[in-house]
């Protein structure tokens, strides 16, 4: 019967059935998997599409109000491109370590993957630390949430990005902990790490967009 998929990869069997099986995924019949992508990966792509609309709206709002602030300080008064470049570089490096974690897990090397996940989370946490410093520095310069349209749009847009990085840091730390404790189904580890990686790279790309269009363009002008 064609419902009995001859699966080549154990994690694909688990995901084709569409449920979390824990350690108990010893069933013979699975639902057919038409799109060639495991459920959880397809779900992540759909979710990231949704996230594109979310950040599109936030970044759109920033540009809708660009140059409309009635009171200072203005972007050119507060941005310090050097510091933000450093934090951007760290976030970019975290995408590299994330890719290394995904690769290690594909080679069935959970210990290495765990270590790269921890490094990725630390780099992400450092990025958030830079953002906290940046925000407090800007507040010190007189730019608050309620100061102007620039203050409101800038803090909320970059704040929600920072929130996404924070969620990613928590996710990756939890994943590293679960791998360390051996609490996840080993067959499903590669896909779990890969999906976390998709999210992480997406959040990274959103920052590249914000850094380019919000910071660098201001710097060039």
């Amino acid at each position, binding site marked *: 019967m064609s419902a009995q998929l001859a699966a080549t990869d154990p994690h694909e069997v688990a995901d084709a059935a*569409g449920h979390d099986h824990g350690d108990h995924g010893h069933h013979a*019949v699975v639902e057919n998997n038409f799109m060639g992508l495991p*459920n959880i990966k*397809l*779900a992540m792509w*759909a979710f990231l599409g949704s996230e594109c609309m*979310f950040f599109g709206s936030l970044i759109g*709002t920033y540009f809708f109000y660009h140059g409309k602030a009635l009171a200072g300080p203005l972007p050119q008064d507060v941005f310090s491109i050097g510091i933000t470049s450093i934090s951007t570089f760290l976030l970019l490096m975290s995408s590299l370590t994330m890719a290394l974690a995904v690769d290690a897990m594909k080679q069935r090397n959970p210990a290495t993957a765990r270590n790269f996940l921890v490094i990725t989370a630390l780099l992400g946490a450092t990025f958030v630390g830079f953002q906290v410093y940046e925000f407090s520095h800007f507040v010190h310069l007189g730019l608050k*949430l309620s100061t102007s349209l620039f203050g409101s749009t800038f803090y909320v847009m970059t704040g929600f990005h920072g929130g996404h990085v924070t969620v990613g840091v928590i996710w990756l730390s939890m994943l590293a902990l679960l791998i360390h404790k051996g609490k996840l189904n080993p067959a499903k580890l590669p896909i779990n790490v890969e999906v976390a990686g998709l999210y992480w790279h997406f959040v990274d790309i959103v920052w590249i967009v914000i850094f380019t269009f919000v910071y660098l363009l201001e710097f060039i002008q």
Partner: protein
Amino acid sequence: MAALSVFDKALEPVYHQEREVKYGLVDWLTTVDHKKIGVLYGVAGLFYLLVGGLEALLFRIQIAKPDQNIFVGDTFNGLVTMHATTMVFMAVMPLIAAFSNYFVPLMIGARDVAFPRMNAFSWWTFCFGSILLNSSLIFAEFPAAGWTGYAPLTTKAMSPSAGIDFWWAGLTMLAISSMVAGVNFVVTILNMRAPGMTLMRVPVLVWMMMVIQFLLAFSFPPVAVGLILLSFDRTFGTVFYEYTMGGDPHLWQHLFWVFGHPEVYVLILPSMGIVSEILPVFARRPLFGQHAVIFSGIFIGFVGFGVWGHHMFTAGMGPIADAVFASTTAIIAIPTGVKIFNWLGTLWGAKMTYPTPMIFALSFIPLFTIGGLSGIMHANAPLDLQQHDSYFVVAHFHYVLVGGALMGLFAGFYFYMPKVTGKLMNEALGKVHFWLFAIGLNLTFWPMHDLGNRGMPRRIYTYPADAGWNFDNLLATSGVFLMAAGTLVFVYNILTSLKNGKAAGRDPWDACTLEWLADSPPKAHNFDFTPIVFSERPLWDHKHTADMAIPVPAAAEEIHMPSYSWKPMWVSGGIVLILVGLLLLHTIPFSWLISVAGGLSIIGSLYAWVTEPV
């Protein structure tokens, strides 16, 4: 050619399940079964349908006659706001969720959705969000800024009442629920189909459900951003909507209608799908141009994202934007017309029978078309300038949403309830319901065209006796009573047929699709064996075509059934705590600690979620 009785001989599958629930109530609180979640959505949707209807009844009494003083000012505005918010987000959307939850897995031959616990999370987030939104009546007062919540009308300066805070908090939860459900069902439909069910063999209703799940996933984020900005303005003093600080009233309108127009299709496409399932069954012939119906639905989904500006012709976007949005809006009439003519083609010369679901489905076509035609008038920007904010618009969208969406959902109830309860609904009561409701809705909404043309604006709580609006308003209000009576007959019919209805059997309507292969009501695992699909009408071909019988395997299948879980409800509860902390921020000192506790409890619950064996 084979009889349905071959399915009775199928062996029960062998279960693998971690834990079983012992007690009924715990079962309903922790269920991850798509059928039970569907029933929960259905009960909630019907409850809020009565609530929203009652709100409409109250404010229609106020404007039945000129110069009345029963519900005035913000009481009237609150009733109008909550009527629309309730009907859109808490009645029609959960009723659609009820159908998609219960029937999408059955129709594609699956055992459940892709992520059963995420599905339960969507339900609890909806449930808590709707309670939070309505609790404004207890803790503050109803929000009174209209369901469209136009900022700056909703800013603290304009609407100091906490009603708006409950509104944004509740709607935010409903948005989260819908986005998560959207992702879940997109994956379910794409990945969980039975063997042999190619995309072009997917039933039209499931196709329409897939289109709206994409719309949910992609159109809710903009309004979520709009609501977040509003919540920041009201809670943390940002100035997004403060015109004194340069804030632009267009911002909210764009963010709201980028969501708002696709939302219209979220409400109507499922009913179009239901009608496309019902007409062929009672016309005894295949749907005319099935692929054209599917592709026009997909086309509507795409173009639906490019038409939102037709809600803003009076907002001063400029002639170019107006022209573009007028054109895209007019274009949407084409795929809609394709559907209407395909339904007519299905019926042309057919030997029809007329049980209640067919009557409702047939009435959908002209009633929706009336709303569609006045919609095309609104695509015309200069004409829209005249009709904007008048009762003509109210007439238009009520023909679409009541004559269209709701009549389609009623048709679906009469058609599918036998599968859910195993009992047929009462035909005589069904016809009483139909005539009361159909006459009532035309009596209410047809005169509103005339009221609009005579210049009566929306959302006014009284009018002078010499305005020339008296007779139409009296007609409209009397129609509401007929609709209310019809709805009560409907609820009575559901309740009594649970007890006294005739046994439905597997396939009471001699239908075409896989859901009728399952028992009525279906077993927890839906199907004893994985059905194999050879055509777009698998059950019909099983019954009528040689060589196309669905094979029943000789051996019992082994299946894994997901176990019950408390974790989805915990995570939803954490979101409630976060929002409650924000709502109390300026009322109770240190209430931000509630939000922090909510965040931590979400993290803890998620850890428990991923580590619990299911």
